[in-house]
């Protein structure tokens, strides 16, 4: 048996001047990540590099896999062995992970997947910024499911939301996505890491009965999240990507399938209110509201500030959670204001926002390659004011 001893602190409490990728890695460490499996890809590589150095120092495991298919599979395996597990990638790798993400959804495997987005389709612009994987986070794997995805806008949020992602993943037993972008991954700012005891923490629901008492690994209570037994604990679980009964055994029953897929969706959707985080900036009296997220929200905030200086009552709804979609917040805002959605893609969130509003949503879009600057957003605000 391998004996691992921690000789460095997991939580580096204090103020740091680090980039978003490194902050994400520190967030994973602070959250108790036990295994990182990944494959190098720009612009996420610094997360792997940082964890390659840091994880072994705190008793964790870093493994560089042969590809993203294997990375995602190893993360799932590690989770079932009891570890908090994570991978980080960018669009091309995120594409390769989708099949195993679906396995994680159906088998209710907690894990965290970080996508530091770059412009696609395909290899696109590897070193530049983009937000064009938003819909892939929602629909990337086949079948019906409801993901949870966060969009950090700063290195501080790369840290905070990575910690939150581990907690959400464990609490709901789902893969959780950090939909970062190259700008946020590579910008360097102050990151304040709190004391270990001040970090939010929640854990997987666990079996209360000892092994041998007919444990049903997929029998969920009113909270819709079944308790999770790990490999090696004596429960002799069987876990399959086939549609399965509460016992975990495969079935061909359409009724069981419908019940299972609905529960998997409902366990997320019923918690949509608590899961959908937004930041409201100057919205109380706003005539025009910009909806933005991630790196683009930084430009949007500047555009709104300039508009205010020019006497235009503008505000910002910054989406922190992308999935479940903060439709209620947008619907409410759509009744009071004219909406502008600004994003580094050709309207993925804008189109979703339109489903929640009666009027048209004004789009400020760019396919990616540079951070959307404040000017076109300001222009849109002024036109709509």
């Amino acid at each position, binding site marked *: 048996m391998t004996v691992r001893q921690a000789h460095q602190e997991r939580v580096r409490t204090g103020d740091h001047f680090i980039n978003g990728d490194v902050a994400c890695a520190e967030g994973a460490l602070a959250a108790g990540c036990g295994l990182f499996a990944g494959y190098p890809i720009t612009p996420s590589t610094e997360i792997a590099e940082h964890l390659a150095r840091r994880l072994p120092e705190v008793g964790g495991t870093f493994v560089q896999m042969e590809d993203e298919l294997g990375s995602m599979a190893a993360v799932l395996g590690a989770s079932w*062995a009891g570890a908090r597990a994570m991978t980080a990638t960018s669009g091309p790798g995120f594409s390769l992970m989708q099949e195993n993400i679906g396995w994680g959804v159906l088998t209710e495997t907690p894990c965290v997947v970080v996508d530091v987005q770059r412009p696609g389709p395909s290899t696109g612009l590897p070193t530049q910024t983009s937000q064009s994987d938003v819909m892939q986070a929602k629909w990337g794997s086949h079948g019906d499911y409801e993901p949870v995805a966060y969009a950090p806008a700063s290195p501080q949020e790369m840290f905070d939301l990575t910690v939150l992602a581990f907690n959400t993943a464990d609490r709901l037993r789902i893969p959780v996505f950090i939909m970062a972008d190259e700008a946020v991954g590579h910008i360097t700012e102050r990151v304040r890491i709190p004391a270990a005891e001040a970090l939010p923490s929640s854990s997987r629901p666990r079996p209360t009965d000892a092994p041998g008492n007919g444990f049903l690994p997929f029998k969920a209570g009113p909270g819709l999240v079944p308790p999770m037994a790990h490999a090696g604990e004596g429960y002799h679980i069987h876990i399959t990507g086939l549609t399965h009964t509460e016992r975990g055994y495969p079935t061909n029953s359409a009724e069981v399938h419908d019940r299972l897929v609905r529960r998997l969706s409902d366990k997320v959707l019923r918690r949509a209110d608590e899961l959908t985080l937004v930041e409201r900036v100057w919205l109380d009296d706003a005539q025009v509201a910009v909806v933005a997220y991630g790196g683009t929200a930084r430009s949007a905030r500047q555009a709104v500030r300039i508009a205010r200086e020019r006497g235009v009552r503008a505000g910002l709804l910054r989406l922190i959670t992308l999935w479940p979609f903060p439709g209620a917040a947008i619907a409410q805002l759509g009744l009071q204001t004219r909406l502008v959605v600004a994003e580094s893609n050709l309207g993925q969130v804008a189109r979703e926002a339109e489903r929640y509003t009666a009027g048209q949503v004004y789009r400020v879009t760019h396919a990616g390659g540079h951070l959307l600057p404040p000017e076109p957003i300001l222009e849109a605000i002024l036109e709509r004011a």
Partner: protein
Amino acid sequence: MSEIVTTTHPTDPLLRAERLPHIWCPGCGIGSVTACYMSALAESGLPLDQCVVVSGIGCTGRVAGYVNLDSFHTTHGRAIAFATGVKLANPRLQVTVFSGDGDLFAIGGNHFLHAVRRNTDLLVVCVNNFNYAMTGGQAGPTTPRHSFTTTTPRGATDQPFNLQHLAAALGVVYSARWTALHLRQLKTSFSQALQLHGFRFVEVLSPCPVGFGKANDLGEGIEEMEFYRAQGVVDRRISPAEALIEMSKSTPLPLGVFVDPERQGNGQAGPAKGADGVVGR
């Protein structure tokens, strides 16, 4: 003896009896191989609560569903990568990958290469039935040349993998090939492999009368078993490179242990060493 009927089979506690009968066709060897593995595991002295089986997709992928252990039926081709995560996150677990030739060596081939390169502490069992059986008998990475399958209606043209040569060349700690007929020898190989550390490989040839046998004059399962008996040759002078499988009545079928810690040279690369330079236990 007045009573020969018993209500339990010796392997009952080792299998998920409530899931039987299994889905495998009459004449298929996967069930025998599974029971053989479980018997070896039970006799190994390893705590069964610490033993894990990981499978991919396909007929052999269903093994995970019948063993009474912590068992995982993963995605197509990714069993070894998944098992790598299990093992690394909890090194106390004895992790065995059980899957078929298509899953392990076509869609999942790259993971095999890299798991051996890392000398990952896994036992990988490949039931090789020369075709994609679950989907109805298509050609796979071990389909012998000139064999008929639903996707090689004029006979297979591509060179198949010789899995013993592949494993030996990559540097596995242990590699053996038996058939679903040679269960006693197979059990010995499972027992040997379970006592070693590092990447261990056991290939088991299995009849697939529905998907492969009938179309290739191998007949029913029992007739393919007879073929294994007639053609099977255990000769330690046969190197892994020479251990081709032609499935023809005019050529021998090389079986045996091709790599183990005591046996080096003979044409194959030496066994892989762990990071500490130690081979095996």
